[in-house]
């Protein structure tokens, strides 16, 4: 089973994210694989371990994206493709999907696994558009995956108040929820082996794409600016007799916060 896993390198969300002149400051930040993409890698590796085949990880981004690709190779992926072209920067979901579709079409594949959304933008657009461009069926928000034979997946997907059990014939695209699995840590042997695995670096031209189809020029959704979230005002502290304090708090909840209205 040949599986393609697109991954996104995102700013470590545990760090203080700063906004400078309407843009997110990227210097000096550390980057990680978007967490749902790690679940996608893990799912792909488990399928490969069961049915054989190859796992190819793909990332579109500047130089630093290669770190995330190496990490995926260290976890056990076989090959990596890094689309590193300044003209691809500031693509919208549609632009990224176009690039990923071209990469996927370079070789035969049975399955594409994405995270259900990126951890930085929470947009969740690239996967569905990629499925559409490639004419693939898609199942989103997968929390359980079984595969007795390589041509079919049995999936549970999470809905608002329950689970939907579906069977999916390949080729197809699925998107992982973080409860699908526990992504493995890269072993030292894996990290050492990753150095020797192929990592292809491609330009847009290598994929037959022109710079104005994607990136800021080709984007149909344009980001105007980022603003830092407003700082929350300090809370109020009440001390004293329990009954009196409770009365005060109830009064504020009712009349100031108006939560009972």
């Amino acid at each position, binding site marked *: 089973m040949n599986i393609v896993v697109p991954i996104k390198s995102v700013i470590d969300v545990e760090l203080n994210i700063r906004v400078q002149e309407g843009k997110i400051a990227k210097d000096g930040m550390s980057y990680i694989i978007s967490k749902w993409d790690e679940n996608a890698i893990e799912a792909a590796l488990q399928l490969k371990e069961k049915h054989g085949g190859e796992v190819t990880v793909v990332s579109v981004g500047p130089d630093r994206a290669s*770190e995330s690709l*190496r990490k995926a190779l260290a976890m056990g992926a076989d090959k990596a493709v890094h689309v590193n072209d300044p003209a691809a920067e500031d693509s919208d979901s549609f632009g990224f999907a176009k690039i990923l579709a071209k990469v996927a079409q370079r070789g035969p594949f049975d399955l594409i696994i994405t995270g259900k959304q990126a951890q930085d933008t929470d947009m969740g657009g690239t996967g569905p558009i990629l499925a559409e461009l490639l004419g693939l069926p898609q199942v989103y928000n997968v929390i359980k995956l079984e595969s007795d034979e390589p041509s079919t997946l049995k999936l549970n997907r999470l809905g608002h108040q329950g689970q939907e059990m579906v069977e999916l014939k390949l080729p197809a695209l699925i998107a992982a929820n973080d409860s699908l699995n526990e992504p493995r*840590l890269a*072993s*030292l*042997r894996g*990290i*050492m082996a*990753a*150095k020797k695995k192929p990592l292809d670096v491609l330009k847009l031209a290598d994929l037959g794409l022109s710079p104005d189809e994607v990136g800021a020029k080709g984007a149909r959704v344009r980001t105007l600016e980022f603003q830092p979230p407003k700082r929350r005002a300090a809370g109020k502290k009440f001390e004293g007799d329990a009954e009196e304090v409770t009365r005060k708090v109830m009064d504020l909840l009712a009349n100031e916060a108006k939560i009972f209205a």
Partner: protein
Amino acid sequence: MDTLTLDDLSGLPGLLTEEEALIRATARAFVAEQVLPQIADHFERKTFPDELVPELGALGYLGANLTGYGCAGVNMVSYGLMLQEIEYGDSGLRSFVSVQGSLAMYAIHRFGSEEQKQAHLPPMARGQQIGCFGLTEPDHGSDPGGMRTFARTRGNTFVLNGTKAWITNSPVADVAVVWAKLDEDSHKAVRGFIVERGSKGFETPPMKSKMSMRASHTGEIVLSDCVVPKESMLPLSNGLGSPLACLNQARMGIAWGAIGAAKACFESALAYARTRTQFGKPIGSKQLIQDQLVEMALEITKADLMNLHISRLKDAGKVTPQQVSMCKKNSVAQALRIARMARAIHGANGISLEYCPVRHMLNLESVYTYEGTNEVHSLIIGQGLTGFSAF
């Protein structure tokens, strides 16, 4: 204002390769997920997290810097970074990794026969065979050449007699690398022997009372007419220099590790100082506390950079024993000082296992003494400087 981290001060991440950075990040994630949530409890109950051993094997942490036989073959810098993250968790767990890899496995890898390597190294790398290293004796610590453990040749066997003390992992070890004098009482007669659990006359009683390294198995090795086959001798071991070479291997890793414990103590003290309020202000806003935090951060930064530099020399095959002694002595002495300062900054809370400093402080008292005491390393460096042996 954004506050600085230790990495911001040292610039260490910028000095690492992509692989080294990934090894560091992965070990950090392992410790955060699997070690930190449970380790204080193990320390209190005087138990070891045995279930982590196969996990350490799967991640390639056991014998990581050895080549072949299922070992990852990473460089000294990667190995040191990994040990530092493990000791950020606990010195007991790091001791397990050091003893298994740098002492027991290293001794077999360097001095063993091909058959011995094939039989022991792959299962030890996977964590399926636990090893220990018996050199220290109740009456011979800093002077291992005085050891009273002897091996006598008897037909096709050796008969071992003697007692080893303070042996990490011995109560649970499947194999012990034991150092003994073969047939005569001299430094040159020291040889290594692989003794397997189940051999007659081989016992490993645990050390009863210890206030340090409580999350670690520590015991004796008692050999009473213990008969082992001829093939159990490490054929390339030859004199006291052989076990000392193993110690020199482990010491560089210990230097890295101790600073991991120091970082945990510093970070705990910093977080505490920023939130603990006395006299109406966080204690971190007081000059006395800031001076102590700065002192701690400076020593950590200096130790990290010295360990990195000497490890790069080791990777290039250009390191001297004196340089390794310098790193062990400096890192452990400073780590212990930092742990004590961090303990004090936490005030009364500093004696509780709810906070990490007192646990690290107690552990580091052992690290200060083992693998060459702080004073023995002075003698090694002092001899190098003056040309006079002061042992």
